[in-house]
């Protein structure tokens, strides 16, 4: 379980009121009743809180896939002096 996964599930629990029991690596956003607007909102929240661009995540993506995207964003951001660690 990566830092990115922890960050993502934290947002889902705290900002989207998803019960922790529903969160697994294989859960898709569709499973959680989330649509493209919800994903857009989550991307805004992640960007504002951590300066990371959460891209190419779709409603059918699993949480593991989304966390991988977030890790990629973190690696892309790492050389810059800007945002710190995601967690």
């Amino acid at each position, binding site marked *: 379980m990566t830092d990115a996964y922890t960050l993502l599930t934290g947002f889902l629990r705290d*900002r*989207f*009121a998803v019960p922790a029991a529903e969160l697994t690596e294989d859960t898709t956003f569709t499973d959680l009743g989330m649509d493209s*607007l919800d994903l*857009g*909102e989550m991307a*805004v929240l992640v960007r*504002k809180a951590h300066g990371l661009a959460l891209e190419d995540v779709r409603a059918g993506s699993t949480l593991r896939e989304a966390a991988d995207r977030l890790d990629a964003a973190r690696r892309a951001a790492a050389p810059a002096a800007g945002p710190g660690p995601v967690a």
Partner: protein
Amino acid sequence: MRGRERDVAVTGLGLVTPCGTGTAATWRGLCSGVPTAVADERLSGALVDICCPVGEFGAVEALGHRVVLRTDRFTQMALVAAREALADAALSPAEWDPSRVGVVIGVSTGSTESWAPHFASLAAGRPEDVSPFLLPRTVPNMAAAEIAIRFGAQGPGFAVSTACAAGATAIGVARDLVRSGTCDVVVAGGSEAPAVPIVATCFAQMGALSRRTDDPAGACRPFAAGRDGFVLGEGAGMLILERPEHATARGATLHARLTGYGASSDAHHITAPHPQGRGAEAAIRAALADAGLVPRDIGHVNAHGTGTVLNDLAEARALRRVFGTPPPVTAVKSIVGHALGGAGAIEAACTVLSLRHGLVPPTANHDEPDPDCDLDVVTAAPRPVRATSALSNAFGFGGQNAVLVFETP
């Protein structure tokens, strides 16, 4: 001439007001005669920082966290009030024909609360921080849309905007949907959450708000000498309007009948009412004619009564011309403030409650009547009034007027 087949049944009421959540809490608060105005920290930095706030109204419990996240406060209050009204009407969405259920909601300024942080994002050069929920949160038709989504109402659904008359206009337009046979049931009302600094400051700059910020409870003084403006409120009012045959067939209880609706435009000024209240008078006369009533049939008037110098004088003049000696009048904005697009619907519900209870709630702060208004204003305590019909007035900026006539079942 008019037959009762043109009447529309009122079978449910729902209210979220500064007196409390629900019809019972609101009626108790109105009858107490105690104003709800206070200094409100949400208005910090505004030219006037007092209003009548709606406290905790159970949005998360009633609607769920996800709906609260994506909606503006005006939509949340509309949803909570609609939920109460449907329960009060004992209407189950599982049992109705959804294609024949409509939703019409009045809104004035809409959701100013939601915009502010996003303008700040743009100003800071961060357009990517603007939420994808911002537009669906803020478009004025979203209260009507969220009600339709939640309860499965697939008939006509829309918002109406006539400024401070919008809640009453919505009920009138909804009445026409029922009377025309388009709908069996319409959820009709208004909602507004204007307690934000920009709205308070705008109204203050126009000279419309009371400046008695050191005495919030004494600030709104409808029809009284020394009145100096209205006090912002917030809240939602919802009525269930129903085809009488539909209501009878399912054994519903009728709170009242909505028998008259009159609308007019002053065609005079963007904010000031016609000084003689000509537009208001026309709307009152139209509503009476629509109901097939004459002025002496009306036993009570729930006035628009904002507490501004101009409104109250124009309204009093209109009432005196129509009625000669008008029946007992009350102005509940003295207690709950002015909820703009919500006000006409909140007051329509109060008018129905007055008919049901045979009781007119008092107008607060009417200790020194304005002799130029010369009305029989109910003060100090609720007054027993055995009326069979009552008028609810609502007048909006732009000179747009809506008047409703309710009668006992």
